């Protein structure tokens, strides 16, 4: 838990770049994700703050945040977990057979929902990028990374909010389409 309360003083008094660890703590990120899970995955779905070890066959989705703090909100889990999430998200609206596109889309949308709410806690105004999907992005600089390891239905799921310096992604098409919100 980070006890630092951002008052904006730091930003006014120096040009030191903002560090995510000064802006948001693990519990806030977890509670944002928990709200998303309760609303979208199911009433009784809990994200337990326990590390579950690195998933096999990991897949990540992420959204970029560009503003006073610039970086990326990344959601990482195994492919099997992503499929289960997509099924829960669609619930009775799920087609008989889920295709890869549905799974990618669902994981991207979860990153978008968590990312949008993380962004709202950070100093603004900031723009939110469109969700992207690929293999695990490079870790951000440790001092500018807030990492939350969670278990959902016993499966491991990690959310990181990481500064841009280390965030180099490899997307399937290598075509990060962006849609900046006019500020």
């Amino acid at each position, binding site marked *: 838990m980070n006890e630092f309360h951002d008052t904006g003083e730091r930003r006014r008094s120096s040009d030191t770049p903002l560090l995510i660890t000064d802006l948001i703590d693990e519990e806030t990120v977890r509670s944002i994700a928990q709200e998303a899970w309760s609303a979208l995955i199911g009433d009784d779905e809990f994200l337990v703050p326990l590390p579950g070890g690195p998933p096999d066959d990991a897949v990540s989705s992420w959204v970029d945040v560009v503003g006073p703090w610039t970086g990326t909100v990344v959601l990482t889990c195994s492919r099997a977990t992503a499929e289960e999430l997509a099924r829960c998200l669609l619930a009775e609206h799920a087609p008989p057979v889920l295709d890869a596109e549905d799974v990618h889309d669902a994981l991207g949308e979860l990153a978008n929902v968590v990312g*949008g709410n993380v962004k709202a806690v950070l100093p603004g105004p900031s723009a939110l990028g469109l969700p992207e999907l690929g293999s695990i992005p490079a870790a951000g600089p440790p001092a500018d990374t807030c990492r939350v390891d969670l278990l959902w239905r016993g499966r491991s799921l990690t959310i990181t909010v990481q500064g841009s310096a280390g965030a180099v992604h490899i997307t399937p098409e290598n075509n990060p389409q962006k849609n900046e919100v006019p500020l």
Partner: protein
Amino acid sequence: MRALVIDDSKVMRRIVAGILEGLGYEVQQAGHGREGLDVLAGGWVPELVCVDWNMPVMDGLQFVSAVRSNPTWRHVTIMMVTSESEHGQIVRALAAGAHEYVIKPFTADAIRDKLALLGLLPQDVVR
């Protein structure tokens, strides 16, 4: 009643459309603001549009402004459904002409509550 659901996520479109269909709406879907405008321009003008903010080609805010600049669509009620949740962003959406704002994540009940506020809940839906 008719509703147009605009979101770049197919999964999210299906969820919102499913909720609205469950309430008795006839629903069409579009993947971004430009596609949404094409639906309206094609003559299918619904009572309600649910529109995401961040989308490729044309975002939700641009879509709202475009709809509001055309007087023939003035009776269309627009509800933004988006993960954009800063105070200032909600103010901007309302100023552009959106009537309501649902923050993602939402539940089916949240959509229904907002439609009740807007007087857009089909009459035969009993809680």
